[in-house]
């Protein structure tokens, strides 16, 4: 275990003797199934659950020779922006005392930032890889939807989430992406990336000469002043290396965070219906009928944020409200996609601060869920548009708090964002 509570389970899983990740430790977020090693999703509901099979990404890590040092702490079922909603206690930011590590893959980013694992896997539904990467001063990649198999990932919001790497450098993250990316017969949403030369790691050559960067002004409005200053300093750095930037207008992103939460909560209300305490998970007992037992299991097994989202999702999908919330959110999603496609016609990548604020103090956002949801304004549009994005360290505030810079690319444009990001980290 770690002083900052980064691991839920520190059981070691050995991989093959040889391979590109031999002698490398890769921590795995605890919503990714590991055969024979408990996988809790940060929830009391699954505190004793032991999967009978490996997720595809875990199988690929083992085949590549990686050693998995443990399962990392996370917001319960991936629902949170601070890694404070875990049933196994909050994680502290190892590089910013008294602050949150970001969420929901906070444990994965923390163990990498602290040097307790070489690399880690997280999952990103609305920014859950990029946010903790930014708050902990490391690199995180959210891949294009369909590039990485979700087989064995305990689902929260299927249409939005992807597994991706967290690492100290862009090149390290790209090497891990090389291992986990590619079609999987167990996940029909995966597809072969279009032909491209070389590995993702080879794209981390730091060459940004001639790179055209679009900056969506909407994603700077309302951000913390020190975050914005750090962002522009990093862009100046890229400009000095031969890149150019221009401002772009993305009016749809003003509604993205609301659309994201409506869609994610709706999918969550459906996905989490599988936790009935009969096949796995906390039992609701056998007194009364199935409905009573089910409701009882879920009262005891789920934490407050999970209940909040399941209920709001049920509300958004219920008769009379479907058109008002869910259908409108799908319209917003289509609009965001169009906006991004148009902006990426005139730019190679789009750049913004990853998070509009530096890492929050622990406990600060828990009492006000809406404030926490709004902190995801810069990351959620990318998931709605199914695009790839990377968060790289951009610098620090005057108080030494990490600030992340997000680069968004076109679908399957991982090499572009890796190349651009590698000029900074």
């Amino acid at each position, binding site marked *: 275990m770690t002083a900052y509570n980064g691991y839920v389970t520190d059981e070691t899983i050995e991989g093959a003797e040889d391979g590109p990740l031999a002698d490398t430790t890769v921590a795995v977020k605890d919503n990714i199934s590991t055969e024979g090693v408990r996988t809790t999703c940060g929830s009391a509901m699954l505190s*004793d*659950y*032991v999967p*009978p*099979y490996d997720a595809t990404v875990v199988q690929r890590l083992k085949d590549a020779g990686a050693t998995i040092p443990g399962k990392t702490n996370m917001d319960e079922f991936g629902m949170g922006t601070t890694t404070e909603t875990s049933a196994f206690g909050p994680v502290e930011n190892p590089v910013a005392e008294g602050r949150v590590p970001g969420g929901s893959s906070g444990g994965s980013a923390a163990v990498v930032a602290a040097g307790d694992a070489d690399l880690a896997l997280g999952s990103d539904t609305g920014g859950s890889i990029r946010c903790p990467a930014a708050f902990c001063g490391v690199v995180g990649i959210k891949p294009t939807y369909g590039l990485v198999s979700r087989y064995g990932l305990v689902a929260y919001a299927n249409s939005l989430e992807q597994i991706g790497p967290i690492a100290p450098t862009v090149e390290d993250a790209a090497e891990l992406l090389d291992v986990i990316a590619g079609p999987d*017969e167990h996940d*029909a*949403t995966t597809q072969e990336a279009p032909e491209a030369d070389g590995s993702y790691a080879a794209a981390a050559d730091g060459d940004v000469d001639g790179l055209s960067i679009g900056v969506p002004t909407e994603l700077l409005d309302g951000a913390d002043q020190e975050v914005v200053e750090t962002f522009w300093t990093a862009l100046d750095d890229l400009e000095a290396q031969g890149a150019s930037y221009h401002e772009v207008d993305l009016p*749809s992103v*003003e*509604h993205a965070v*609301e*659309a994201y*939460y409506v869609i994610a909560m709706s999918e969550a*209300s459906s996905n989490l*219906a599988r936790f*009935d305490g*009969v*096949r*796995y*998970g906390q*039992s*609701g*007992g*056998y007194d*009364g*009928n*199935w*409905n*009573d*037992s*089910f*409701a009882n299991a*879920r*009262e005891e097994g789920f934490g*407050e944020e999970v*209940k909040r989202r*399941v*209920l*709001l*999702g*049920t*509300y*958004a999908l*219920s008769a009379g409200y479907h058109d*008002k*919330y869910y259908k*409108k*959110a*799908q*319209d*917003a999603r*289509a*609009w965001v*996609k*169009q906006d991004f496609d148009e902006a990426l016609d005139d730019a190679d990548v789009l750049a913004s601060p990853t998070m509009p604020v530096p890492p929050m103090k622990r406990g600060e956002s828990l009492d006000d*869920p*809406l404030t926490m*949801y*709004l902190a995801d304004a810069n990351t959620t549009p990318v998931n709605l548009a199914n695009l790839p994005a990377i968060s790289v360290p951009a610098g620090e505030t005057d108080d030494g708090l990490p600030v992340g810079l997000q680069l968004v690319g076109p679908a399957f444009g991982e090499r572009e964002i890796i190349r651009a990001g590698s000029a900074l980290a």
Partner: protein
Amino acid sequence: MSDPAVDPEEVRHVADLARVDLADDEIERFTEQFGDILDAFEALDDVPETEREADLSNVMRPDEIRESLSQEDALQNASDTEEGQFKGPKVS
């Protein structure tokens, strides 16, 4: 706002639909928070109707018997089983 604020009865009703028991203090908290959150979601009213991409296609595989979990593995996380099957409470 066009809709009245969420009331405790509505929260209880949704919790019932979602099959989640709630403590009284949770109902009180959720009632207040849901009002704020649903108000924020009203921003979606400004979203123009947008044509959605229709380039989706089904991905099918042949319907063939394949290797699967053994019955023993499939049952290993169940709190109660009987004669190789899951045992649960009565349905109604």
